[in-house]
């Protein structure tokens, strides 16, 4: 039987595998060579360290078991795991099986893949029945994932998803091939089992059944050929489809663990991240732009970068709230990737701000930088000044009258060189003040002061952190009211800077906070973000009102935030009292002053 048929049917698989290997190897080499010299040294050092083992473990956990997707949705996680891990086990045990069969480590590369076609008389070899049944069970495991994948096309809700990504033609070919591989393998193995009696607990009964009414002489080679073609097509289409994420993600995990980082300009590490996107679409559902019917989510940006057709309309229409980055199972740095793309796209038109020179400087212990947005919400500014006066701090209000912007809005818009000019100007003044602390009222400013300013020996604090510190030192009055409030995490302070607990601990001295569903890492964006250059105000209103409606479900007395822009945006919704955290603290000072005044008055009256 074997001799009658030439082994021609293995060639689609062999050609596909060879093409795939060459392209992937070429890309890995090109990506590595494109990294900066320091990054190459990092990799070289990392290769011989523990990081390599850690990366391998992480690659196994995320690339095969898909632990993070399990956390998003168990059914979705199972689907990915059964396909990836199941296939991996099929390959591994397939090789063990071939070793047991051959009794040596040398066998042709295609033998484990088309094993049942070649194996005759399994009784004479060791463990063959065991392997046959094990392989059948593994195949069943993979097939359960494939059938879930079929089903997902009709019912996404079971997988916790409302939206799925739109497919390109390359993706379609790869997807169809992938869907066909395993059913064809089951059929081919069953047909062979019908002829050669070499099947396991599933393929053997199936084979016996088929042998009753199927002309196995004819169907067996044809099905194996089809199986080989499905594999070949999958491998050939892989490098140009989203399935390139399989090798790229592993590569990405290693580079990340070797401390390679994104730069302010696009380099091959950005490309590695772009290619690591599996277009799973988990970022789609989490994006609040959906509410305004805007479809510029991270997965599409990465796809456009790969296809070299990214437009400004897509690139700049994003709130940079960071929700997608939080849920991305691959851990792609979606915000920084988008910002570097913005930097690249606006390189030709940065501002010089030649009019900026020096400026007034005062000596003080604390520098207070309110920020542009705080100047639009004067109650925050007023509250902070009250608190400074109450606690007797020696401070300098840096941007009280004249000071340039902090530079973060320019940074978000990709105007890196322009932002650097503003940063330099502010930096010099802050250093000249001799202060040990910089207090900032706006989380947008806070982030740029932390990340892009060079302020050695100066502690930068957002005012919520600073007030918390004052509270701990006993410099602020505590006054718990009966008010119930919701704390809204600003994107730049929460997901952007990881400050969640200090504002909450501070507020617990003044009001009782209602725990809500979307808080901390999952908190909503107010819709006002300066990062979005393209969105219209009417579209922002939809996002704002939706967030407000969610908060109103908990019927709070007030909404407390710690960002002037969030406050301004929510106040525009006109649905609930919106306060800044500094106002809550300042209100207790005013109250205390009032009661002191009353006491003084009583003393005075008694004296009279």
């Amino acid at each position, binding site marked *: 039987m074997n001799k009658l048929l030439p082994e021609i049917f293995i060639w689609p698989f062999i050609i596909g595998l060879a093409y795939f290997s060459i392209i992937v190897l070429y890309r890995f080499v090109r990506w590595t060579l494109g990294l900066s010299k320091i990054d190459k040294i990092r990799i070289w050092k990392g290769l011989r360290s523990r990081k390599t083992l850690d990366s391998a473990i992480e690659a196994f956990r995320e690339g095969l078991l898909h632990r993070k997707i399990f956390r998003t949705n168990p059914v979705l996680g199972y689907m990915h795991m059964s396909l990836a891990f199941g296939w991996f086990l099929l390959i591994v045990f397939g090789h063990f099986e071939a070793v047991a069969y051959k009794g040596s480590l040398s066998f042709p590369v295609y033998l484990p893949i088309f094993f049942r076609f070649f194996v005759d008389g399994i009784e004479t070899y060791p463990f063959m029945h065991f392997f046959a049944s094990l392989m059948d069970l593994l195949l069943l495991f993979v097939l359960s994932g494939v059938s879930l994948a079929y089903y997902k096309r009709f019912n996404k809700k079971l997988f916790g998803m409302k939206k799925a990504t739109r497919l390109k033609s390359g993706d379609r070919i790869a997807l169809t091939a992938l869907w066909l591989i395993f059913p064809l393998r089951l059929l081919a193995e069953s047909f062979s089992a019908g002829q050669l009696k070499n099947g396991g607990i599933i393929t053997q009964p199936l084979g016996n059944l088929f042998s009753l009414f199927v002309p196995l002489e004819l169907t067996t080679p044809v099905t194996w050929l089809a199986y080989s073609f499905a594999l070949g097509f999958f491998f050939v289409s892989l490098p140009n489809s989203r399935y390139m994420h399989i090798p790229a993600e592993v590569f990405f995990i290693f580079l990340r663990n070797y401390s390679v980082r994104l730069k302010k300009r696009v380099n091959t590490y950005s490309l590695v991240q772009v290619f690591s996107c599996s277009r799973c679409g988990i970022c789609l559902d989490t994006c609040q732009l959906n509410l305004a019917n805007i479809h510029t989510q991270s997965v599409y940006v990465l796809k456009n970068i790969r296809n070299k057709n990214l437009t400004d309309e897509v690139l700049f229409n994003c709130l940079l709230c960071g929700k997608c980055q939080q849920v991305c199972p691959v851990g792609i740095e979606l915000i920084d990737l988008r910002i570097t793309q913005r930097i690249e796209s606006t390189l030709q038109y940065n501002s010089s701000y030649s009019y900026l020179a020096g400026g007034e400087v005062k000596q003080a212990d604390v520098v207070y930088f309110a920020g*542009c947005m705080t100047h*639009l919400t004067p109650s925050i500014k007023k509250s902070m000044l009250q608190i400074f006066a109450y606690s007797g701090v020696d401070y300098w209000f840096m941007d009280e009258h004249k000071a*340039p912007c902090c530079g973060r*809005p320019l940074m978000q818009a990709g105007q890196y060189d322009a932002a650097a000019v503003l940063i330099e100007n502010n930096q010099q003044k802050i250093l000249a003040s001799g202060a040990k602390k910089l207090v900032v009222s706006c989380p947008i400013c806070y982030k740029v002061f932390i990340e892009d300013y060079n302020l050695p020996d100066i502690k930068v604090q957002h005012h919520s952190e600073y007030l918390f510190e004052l509270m701990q030192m006993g410099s602020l009055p505590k006054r718990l009211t009966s008010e119930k409030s919701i704390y809204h995490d600003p994107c730049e302070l929460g997901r952007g800077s990881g400050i969640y607990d200090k504002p909450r601990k501070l507020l617990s001295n003044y009001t009782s906070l209602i725990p809500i569903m979307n808080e901390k890492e999952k908190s909503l964006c107010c819709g006002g973000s300066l990062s979005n250059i393209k*969105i219209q105000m009417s579209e922002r209103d939809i996002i704002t009102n939706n967030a407000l409606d969610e908060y109103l479900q908990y019927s709070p007395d007030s909404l407390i935030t710690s960002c002037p822009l969030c406050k*301004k945006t929510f106040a525009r919704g006109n649905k609930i009292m919106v306060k800044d955290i500094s106002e809550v603290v300042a209100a207790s000072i005013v109250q205390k002053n009032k009661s002191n005044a009353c006491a003084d008055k009583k003393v005075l009256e008694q004296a009279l």
Partner: protein
Amino acid sequence: MGKFGFSVMETRTVNFGELDNRLLGYVLENEASFLTCISCGGCTATCSAGNLIDFNVRKINLFLRRCDIESLAREIDKCMLCGKCTLVCPRDINIRNVVMLIKKGIVKFRNE
């Protein structure tokens, strides 16, 4: 006109036939909300850059409409993109996008 002793000064004329209005078209096409500007001056009043130097958002609109690209390029360079203008605008005009479009457009049409 000569009869009455009046003449038209060169510097005070705008010849619409000769204007290069590609930039104006580009900006309005990509940010239509700018058409609704009522020149109220709210943006200029709140402007962070305007607080430091002579900078007027309304002048930008004027230069753009007069297709005076040179003056426009000089003025637009001063904007710090802080976004206060966008927040105070009573017409909800996306002024930051207007600024970015002008910056991009100047380079784009200079090269064409």
